[in-house]
């Protein structure tokens, strides 16, 4: 089912808008993540799609039909809550079969379908238990089975994995992606964990203070962040930022000056303060690239396949990865560098990206089809 949100506004205190004039289109069968820091309105958006909250202004369309006044029960959606929200007085089987019971599905078929849903999430051996006798991961599976049992048109996931441990999270991530693909169901995931959003979603809507800042594929968000906020938010470890000055086509960094190609970058004749962003993975030891940085080593962390090294450049910390067998001492001064094509520039005042559209497009495509 195609979901469209048009000019949605929602306010809880009449003064400020929790959701401010939001537009969002989710195509049939698409997996979309709403990503943002806590309190940015992503759960509110989801609850409006579910029909729990009514938007103050604007319209919500399901397959072209306005559903603003449709009750949640008539919207044909399944939802997994952060707290799982299982019914504690019912057994696992009854929990899963509950949505079917409300649809007045005959008992035999109900049980058959509930069992099939339980099999999908590997719960068939726990059907007789009460939710309180299950572990967090198992409870989460019950919630997922309950959400998909009535074959809804839309699946809503409200931070479904935030209560699971790291290992279980990865397992559930794969499981949810698999089920979503098998059922071909339109899915919306609310999360504050950018890694979760990046690995699972087809497209991500990054939200901040009730507004969508950028709505794009994970790769686009990673390689072409529209502004400083997105660049900061997406990617682990986070992007490194250095303060720089842009004058004509010259970028002045603490220890180097780089000439930029005006085909790819926007700049004017005035001097502009900029944030220079470089992904940790793009920085290499040595002076091979044309953008280079000099700094003192302040931290060396071994992460198995490589070493993560923090370098102090002026007042900023810059992280990069080095081969695990290279020996680097604390306090030593080293030089690291990268290519001009790997840097991001953001206006320090407006936060806007100064990269012109078209740059790196080829690179993104290459990565997508890899």
């Amino acid at each position, binding site marked *: 089912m195609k979901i469209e949100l048009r000019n949605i506004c929602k306010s809880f205190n009449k003064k400020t808008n929790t959701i401010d004039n939001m537009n969002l289109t989710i195509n049939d069968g698409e997996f979309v993540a709403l990503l943002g820091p806590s309190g940015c309105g992503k759960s509110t958006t989801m*609850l409006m799609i*579910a*029909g*729990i909250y009514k938007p103050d202004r604007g319209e919500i369309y399901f397959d072209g039909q306005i559903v603003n006044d449709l*009750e*949640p*029960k008539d*919207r044909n*959606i*399944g*939802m997994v*809550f*952060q*707290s*799982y*929200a*299982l*019914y*504690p*007085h019912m057994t696992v089987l009854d929990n899963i079969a*509950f*949505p079917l019971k*409300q*649809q007045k599905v005959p008992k035999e078929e109900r049980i058959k379908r509930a069992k099939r849903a339980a099999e999908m999430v590997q719960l068939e051996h726990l059907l007789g238990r009460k*939710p*309180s006798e299950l572990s*967090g991961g198992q*409870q989460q599976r019950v919630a997922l089975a*309950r959400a998909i049992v*009535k074959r809804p048109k839309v699946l*809503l996931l409200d931070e479904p994995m935030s*209560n699971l441990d790291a290992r279980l999270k990865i397992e559930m991530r794969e499981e949810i992606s698999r089920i979503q693909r098998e059922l071909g169901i339109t899915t919306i995931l609310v999360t504050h964990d950018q890694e979760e959003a990046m690995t699972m979603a087809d497209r991500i809507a990054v939200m901040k203070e009730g507004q969508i800042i950028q709505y794009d594929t994970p790769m686009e968000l990673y390689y072409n962040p529209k502004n400083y906020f997105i660049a900061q938010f997406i990617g682990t470890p986070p992007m490194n930022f250095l303060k720089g000055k842009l004058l004509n086509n010259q970028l002045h960094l603490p220890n180097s000056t780089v000439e930029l190609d005006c085909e790819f970058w926007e700049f004017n004749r005035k001097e502009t303060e900029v944030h220079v962003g470089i992904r940790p993975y793009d920085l290499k030891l040595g002076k091979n690239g044309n953008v280079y940085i000099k700094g003192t080593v302040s931290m060396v962390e071994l992460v198995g396949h490589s070493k993560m090294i923090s370098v102090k450049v002026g007042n900023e910390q810059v992280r990069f990865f080095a081969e695990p067998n290279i020996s680097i001492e604390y306090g030593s001064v080293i030089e690291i560098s990268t290519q001009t094509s790997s840097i991001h520039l953001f206006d320090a005042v407006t936060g806007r990206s100064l990269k012109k559209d078209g740059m790196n497009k080829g690179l993104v495509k290459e990565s997508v089809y890899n």
Partner: protein
Amino acid sequence: MEITGYQTESTTMVISSSRWKKRITFIIAYGVLVLTTLPIILMYLWLLVSSFFEKMKFGFIPVHFTLENWEFLWTNVEHGGSMLPSIWRATWNSFVFSGTLTILEVIIGVMAGYALARTEFPGRQALMKTILLLHAFPSVALLIAVFYILNFMGLFDSLWGVVLVKTALQIPMTAWIIKGFFDDVPWDVEWAGLIDGCSRFKVWFSIVLPLIKPGIAAVSIFSFLSGWSEFLLLYTFILSDENVTLSSYLQKLISDPNMVNYGMLSAVSLFYMFPVLLFFLFTQKSLMQMSAGGGKGI
């Protein structure tokens, strides 16, 4: 070997002395408890003994075992020149009174509590504050006003009239307690029900109510007990023997200080207490677990 022997001895000594220390604290605690509860226990014991004997010499030595005091169970008893109403009639009335009170109170309280806990309406805060204030009113202060109203409605000298009055007086507290239980039910569970295909009413009835079962149990027990022990309203607004309840029956026995039959009074008191004791035995488990659940870590 000797060394080991010495060690065991010393450890046993340490253990026994620490054991004694523990015991002493227990003994002191229990001693204080026994001393303070003894008078109450003795009073009940006196009640039991005096109901089975003709009289108590010097007030505490039972003389002559008899079942005469329990005669009211099988015959109509004469007291102070008039016939007392049948005890079974009074018992039945007491049950009807407490039972109806409980049912009304739970139904209204559960609905009012939900509205207070979960809906936004103008004046909600003010209403919650006045509810507590209402409970602070002693029912004696309202006796005359209530009399006029009952008389006007033709409900004077009827059990139903008193049931309504008592319910009205109890509802604020019941609704307040129930509201606390509803507050503990997470919104998520309710929303999940709505999304799973229930209407708001159905969610309330089939998901939220089962979660607050312990609260409903507690409130029903309390209202039944308060109905069973109600005296003032029943005594004031009910005159006819046919509508008498156990508490008023008991009052009839002591209304004339010169004619009190203490043996019979004890027996009737015990009879009045008995259902409450039974009730407690069966319901104390639900009284103990007063918390609602849902969500994670249920």
